[in-house]
């Protein structure tokens, strides 16, 4: 309950900042962005994040699960290591590298976001399976479940919440990273923030940064609810 209060307070503050700055109309020689521009930028931002996370999930989950399967364990180190490297490179660099390779535009931004957001998804998918108590799998096998039955009835329900956590972390990271997408010809709230940076106007920076932060909080909260809903009851119990 108190967590909800904190989240709502934060959101209210962020919204108030946006309303206040937008209402000012003019700051020094600069005109503030209009509500319509903010909405368009937010929508573009959200679209980039969602597309990137969906692609990241479609690649990351199967990849993370695959390397736990017998016969593919040799790939564990290259895959997890590769995803790790994707995230060790500074996000600005990942995005900057994409522009010369793929040209300026939406697609470069998406590719960069996917690369940067892949690690939490791959790593959590991998550990979600790896961390299941081997005795549980041994019992399931010894009782006569087939591989497919073990995957569907045991591994999937137990791994689901951990995988969801990875997707949530990746989403929140992507909301932040997407600020930089504007540098490679993408769009989004980064356009407003960077305009503020170049103009050296804190209030305009805030006009882009506050909605971005709000978006991260809202998406994080929604995905946390999904996660909770996906967690089997027997696993939630604390003793």
């Amino acid at each position, binding site marked *: 309950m108190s967590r909800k209060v904190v989240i709502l307070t934060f959101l209210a503050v962020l919204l108030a900042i946006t309303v206040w700055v937008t209402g000012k109309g003019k700051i020094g020689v600069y005109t503030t962005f209009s509500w319509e521009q903010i909405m368009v930028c937010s929508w573009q931002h959200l679209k980039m994040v969602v597309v990137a996370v969906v692609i990241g999930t479609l690649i990351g989950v199967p990849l993370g699960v695959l390397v736990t399967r017998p016969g593919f364990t040799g790939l564990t180190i290259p895959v997890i290591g590769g995803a790790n490297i994707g995230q060790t490179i500074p996000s600005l660099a990942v995005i900057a590298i994409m522009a010369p390779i793929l040209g300026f535009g939406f697609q470069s931004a998406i590719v960069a976001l996917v690369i940067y957001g892949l690690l939490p998804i791959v790593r959590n998918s991998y550990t979600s399976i790896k961390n299941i108590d081997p005795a549980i799998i*041994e*019992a399931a096998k010894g009782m006569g479940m087939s591989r497919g039955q073990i995957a569907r009835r045991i591994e999937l329900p137990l791994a689901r919440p951990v995988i969801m956590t990875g997707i949530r972390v990746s989403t929140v990271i992507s909301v932040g990273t997407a600020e930089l997408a504007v540098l490679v010809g993408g769009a989004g709230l980064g356009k407003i923030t960077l305009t503020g940076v170049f103009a050296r106007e804190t209030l305009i920076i805030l006009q882009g940064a506050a909605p971005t932060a709000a978006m991260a909080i809202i998406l994080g909260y929604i995905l946390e609810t999904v996660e909770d809903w996906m967690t089997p009851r027997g696993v939630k119990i604390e003793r």
Partner: protein
Amino acid sequence: MIELENVSKIFQDGTVAVQDVSFQVEEGELCVLLGPSGCGKTTTMKMINRLVSISKGRILVNGMDIYDFQDTELRRQIGYAIQEVGLFPHMTVGENIEVVPELRGWAKNKRRDRAAMLLEMVKLPPEFIDRYPKELSGGQRQRIGVARALGADPEVLLMDEPFGAIDPITRVDLQNEFLKIQQDIRKTIVFVTHDIYEAIKMGDKIALMNRGELVQFDTPFNILFQPSDSFVSSFVGRDRALKGLQLIKGKEVMREVELSIGASETVEELKGRLSPDQIRDELPVVGKDGKFLGFIDLNKAQGGKVQDHLTHTEAASNMDIVLDEALSVMLSGERNVLALLDHESRLQGLLAFSDIQRALSEADQWRDSL
């Protein structure tokens, strides 16, 4: 019935885990696979339900070669319980027990009835059926593990140290309860343990293994007192006579009650009736129905009725008690005589410390004469 015929397991790297092992577990018998860690006992057990493949030889379960079935089909017909239990945390206790019945296509209400019945059998309250494993204690989980292994009423049961991971007191309870259950259900069981005491207590037969080979396959008594070689005798240990006490029940060595006293008689009347050498300090007192009430010390008792002078009313036990337990009851109660009763608490005999000593020395002599 389970038959192993010249079974070997050689792993891919060339390690011989099990070598040329043959033995039979008769129907309704509990066979303990015993040995130090790394002796191949668990590997041997896992070959029976094909969790480990056989390199050489063959295994028959109820006359059928286990490779005549699909592996999942085979395992659904063999109960399986392990030390770590491995309950599925996202399923309720009931759902856990119903796993194999469900895999075998039982109808929902038949499965549910079976789960409820098994819960009762392992002495857990019926409302546990809707609890989750995380809500249970370690001992309770072990019980569910056993219940789950019995889920689809298999004829054959494999148990890998099923009582290994719990505290000693709970373990003794579970062992005793399981032995009682086994008396009713008479499953053919292969039971792995490294604990010689557990092996003697649980096994109809013991298969003692060392370095992948079967060293001796015999009754617990013969393993203790007729060890086939020096490995066996060193493994069962020097205090084997003490361990042998687990094999002898109170009723086998108890003495008859020469004189029992009715509770309603007056003490003076009684003393008048008895000869002087019968007036002793530990005479058992019974009620009209033959039920044991306690002891009376006639050297001290004065006046009143016998029932006013009862002492040591708790120094009694079922006559099926094994001697090592009887010994610990005596030691903890500082008693040297126990009253042994039948199921209706009627006095059947007396067990004195000297009776246990006699049993011990007989077992020892018997061993020395070999």
